[in-house]
Structure formats: structure tokens, C-alpha cells
């Protein structure tokens, strides 16, 4: 049996964090950590080496964009997939997210089904 895909979830809104965790599990993945700010997200990512990091853009300590940039800059975490979630849905917001190194960008509010699909798409073939 394949090892489960490991996912880190970071969102400062508890309700949304729980919703994202539910969607991740629905997609057949394991949530290795669910954290509420950018600094914790970075620490957990370095410690857990997840396959996918689901990041809210607007978070205390460090924004999702900053976390994403730092994950990409660190060889230990540069290879993980990053999915950004944000209330900002303008083309500029999306462009900024992708420029920070995210693999995908999902504007809020997202549908659970849409998030499940996105998580599955990003984790196809992982872990190797």
C-alpha cells in the first residue's frame, strides 16, 4: 500500500482551517499539521517535509505569499507543492500568488468539491 500523501494546512480562521482539513481528508490525504500563522507554517513545513502545503494568503506573522517564497528558497522545502487560498480574487492577486511560487491559487469562497479536486490534482504521483 502506498504511503499517504502528507499535507500541511495553514489558515488563521479556525472554521476554514477545519474545513480545509476535511477536504484534504476527503481527497484521501493525511493532514500532518494544521497551523494558524505563517511562522508556524514555516516551522512545520521544515519539520514535516509535507508533499503539499495549503496556505491562506492573509495570515499573521508571515503572509502566505511570504511563506511560499521562503519555502521555495529553502532547498529542504523547495520541492513541495503549494496551494494558496485567498479572499483576493482579482487577476492581480492571482498573479502575485503564482509569482511567489505557488502551484495553484484558489479564491475564497471555494467549494469543498473544488478544493478536493485541486488537492488531488496537485498530489497526483506523490509521494514518489
Amino acid at each position: 500500500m502506498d504511503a499517504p500523501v502528507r499535507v500541511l494546512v495553514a489558515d488563521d480562521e479556525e472554521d476554514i482551517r477545519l474545513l480545509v482539513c476535511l477536504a484534504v481528508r476527503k481527497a484521501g490525504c493525511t493532514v500532518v499539521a494544521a497551523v494558524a500563522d505563517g511562522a508556524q507554517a514555516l516551522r512545520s513545513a521544515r519539520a514535516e517535509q509535507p508533499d503539499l502545503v495549503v496556505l491562506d494568503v492573509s495570515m499573521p506573522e508571515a503572509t502566505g505569499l511570504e511563506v511560499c517564497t521562503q519555502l521555495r528558497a529553502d532547498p529542504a522545502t523547495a520541492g513541495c507543492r503549494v496551494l494558496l487560498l485567498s479572499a483576493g480574487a482579482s487577476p492581480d492577486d492571482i498573479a502575485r500568488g503564482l509569482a511567489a511560487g505557488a502551484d495553484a491559487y484558489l479564491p475564497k469562497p471555494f467549494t469543498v468539491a473544488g478544493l478536493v479536486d485541486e488537492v488531488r490534482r496537485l498530489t497526483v504521483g506523490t509521494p514518489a
Partner: protein
Amino acid sequence: MTALAEPETTSVRSPAAAPAVRPRGRAALSAVAAVAAVGLAVLVAGPGTPVRVVAAVAAALAVAELTRRLRTQLYAATELEAQRRDLMTLGQSTAEELEVATRMMRARAQTMTSVIDAVTEQSIIGTDPDGLIRVWNPGAERMLGLPRAEVVRIRTITDFHAPEELAPDALSPADDAARFAALVQVAREHGSDVRDWTYLTADGGRLTVSVAITPRTDDDGEQAGWNFVGTDMTEARAAERLKDQFVSLISHELRTPLSSILGYLELVMDDEEQPLTAEQRQYLATVERNAQRLLRLVGDLLFTAQVDAGRLTLQPEDVDLAGIVRAAEETARVTAATRGVSVRVEVPAGGLVVRGDALRLGQACDNLVSNAVKFTPADGQVTLRLRAGWRAADGTVLDSDAPGAARVALLSVSDTGVGIPTGEQGQLFTSFFRASTARRNAVPGVGLGLTITKAITTAHGGTLDVASAEGRGTTFTLTLPL
């Protein structure tokens, strides 16, 4: 020599003011005339004539000559007097004219000064061609905190501008000219320039000022300097920033709970292990519909704020409008069916492609269709029609080409609904405006849909027109350049 005295007398009788020959010159002239007269008398009287007779003849001749000369002089003197009088009159009238002109100029200058001095809310600063301040009104005194006496002919306009906005590298005093050139560059190239600058006040404050810069010319049309008319926008700009922050906050703070509501609703409604009863499903569908409505409202508010801030950006691509129209009909189908309104679609079989932002054009079309359905009572009809046509310069829609007409895509949405009173049609595209027929018929909405549709259309270089009759229906016609 008694006879010689006569010219003296004649001379005295000549007009007093005539430029008379000077007395010494006159005596010499008389002597020469006398000698000539004696010579002539000898010739006339003939040799051998007694001396007394010769003398008498000579005297007579001298008198005649003198009289002739004096007449000439008198004539010249009279002429001169006439000229003097003319000159005097001319001088007098010129002086009068000059005085009138001076008075008028003074009055005009006074009017200008009083007008400029009356402006206390705007700064009016005039400079010479090099930026040295020559005019400093009370508005400038108030805004920048320095009295006229301390500024005029002493300071340059660049002293009051944030240096980083004017050629940031020009820091030495020698570069004042470069800074001033940077300040007036656009006005020099385009004749005028209005934009925000940062003014530095005497007490070290910074103000955001909208400054209109225009060149000033003298009577000969030569550049005499520059005018800078400023309006303090510090508070207005701060309010705009606050509004932006508020909108961004609303965006986040409303979208986040809506994300939770919609997400958890979805989990409950799609839970296959614990299926809902029909009644529960109906209730939750109502919750979902209203959450979606709130979400659309937040989106509309955000979009309107973006348009107001001039931040509406389009992602242009080739868009088939027929597809957009069909999608709009699909979106409205359920609501229309529930209300008993039939929706008809007439689009060209081959489609109609325009250059535009598919998402925004879809939003515009959805707005028109959902409005039409919303405002049409049961058994009514909504027709979506798409075709190519022409638009004349005066805005008239034409079916065939005409001189000056532009080829356009015509998308019309007609309904048989409540209509819009003629007097209210002009306000339809204003944010938050709701027609009296909408309020009377309790049709839900906040009055942003048409504002948004109009903004999208305008951003595409198109137009949006309305034709409506109260109680009979409304047709919105959207044109987009082909």
C-alpha cells in the same frame, strides 16, 4: 533811419508767441537791407540825382523789402502757431487717453488682485519663467503658512515641493533649475498639467495638493512665467485610502465567514452517509441561496470600488458572445422557470467573436438577463438577441453600413416587464439607484448591477442604452466594437 524803426514796430505787432527773429539778428538784417536799398536807390534814381532823393528812394525800397520779409516771417510764425496748437491739442488728448487707460489698467489689476485675494481655499502662486515667486495669494499663505512679504521675489516654487518628487538626484542648489524644469515639464509639453504634488508647509507639514500648472504669457504672447493653482486634497486622499482599506476589509471579513457557511453547507448537503430529508434539503437550499446572494453583493461592492478607483483591469481575449449569451440564459433558466417567465435566445449560428474579457462580459450579460427576469411578471417573456450591426457617430444603431458608422456586435435583452419611468432612465446607471417601479414591486436588489454592466461595457469601448415604457417592458442594448 526812422524808416528802419517801423519794422521793429511791425515786429512787435506780430503774434506774441511767434518764434521771433532775435533782436540782434534783426538789426543786422535791417542794416544789410538799408545798404542794399541805398544801392538800389542809386540805380533807380540814376546818377546825378540829388542825395536827398536817393535817400528817400532808398528808404522806400528798404521799407518795401522789409515789409515783404516780415510778411513771410509772419506767415511762417502763424503756421508755427497753428502747428503748436495742433500739437497741444494732440498732446492733451493723448494725455487724457493715457490717463483713462491707466485708470482702466489699475481697475483691472485691482479686480484681478481682489479676485486672487478672495481665494482663500486654493493656493494661487505665480512665478517668473525661472520659478521665482511673483504672486502669492491668501490661499497660499494659509496653505503653506508664510506671508506674502516673506515669499514674493524671495523664494522659488520648488522650495515648497517635496524634493523627492522633482528629479530626486538633483540635490545641490545649482540644480534648482533642473527641479523647476521637472515640475513644469508636462505643462510645457501639453499646455497644462493637473496632478497631485506634495507641498511642504512652513511648519514642516506635508500636504497632498492637486496642482493645475499653466504657462502665463505677457501682452506680446511671450512666456512671462507659470501659474500654480493648488487645492489641498490631503483629507480627500486620506478618505479615499480609508475607503480602499474598508473595501479590502469588507472583502476579507465578509468572504471568510461566507466561505465557512457555504463550505459546511456543502458538506452537509453532499453527505452520502447521512442523506437529508426533502424538507431539510429545501431549508438548506434557502440558506445557500441567500449566502450566495450576500457573496454576489460583496463582489459587486468590491467591483464598484475598483471601478471608482480606476482599477478595473480587463484580460482581453477572443470571446464568442453567442456562448456568453447562451451561458447567461442557462444561469437564469431555473429562476425564470420558477417565476413563469420564458426566455428566448436568438444568436447567429456561427457565433460572433469580439475582443474582450470573457469573465466580465459574462458578468455584464448575466446582470442584464437576471434583471430582465426579475422585473418580468409571470407569463412574461425575455428575449436575448445577438447580431452584428453598425453604430452611427450619433449613437444610432443601424442595420447597414453608413458613412462614419462603426461595425459593432449588438446584444439586446428585452423583457415584457414593469418598465422604467422615462424620467428615471437617465439615473439608471448611477450606483445604488433603484427605479420607482423596482421599489413599488418590491423587486430585490441594491442598484449596482447596471452600474457594473455600464462600467464593463465602457471599459470595452462599447455602449449601453435603454429603451423602456412603463408597464410594457424594457430593452437594454449593449454594443461592442467588432
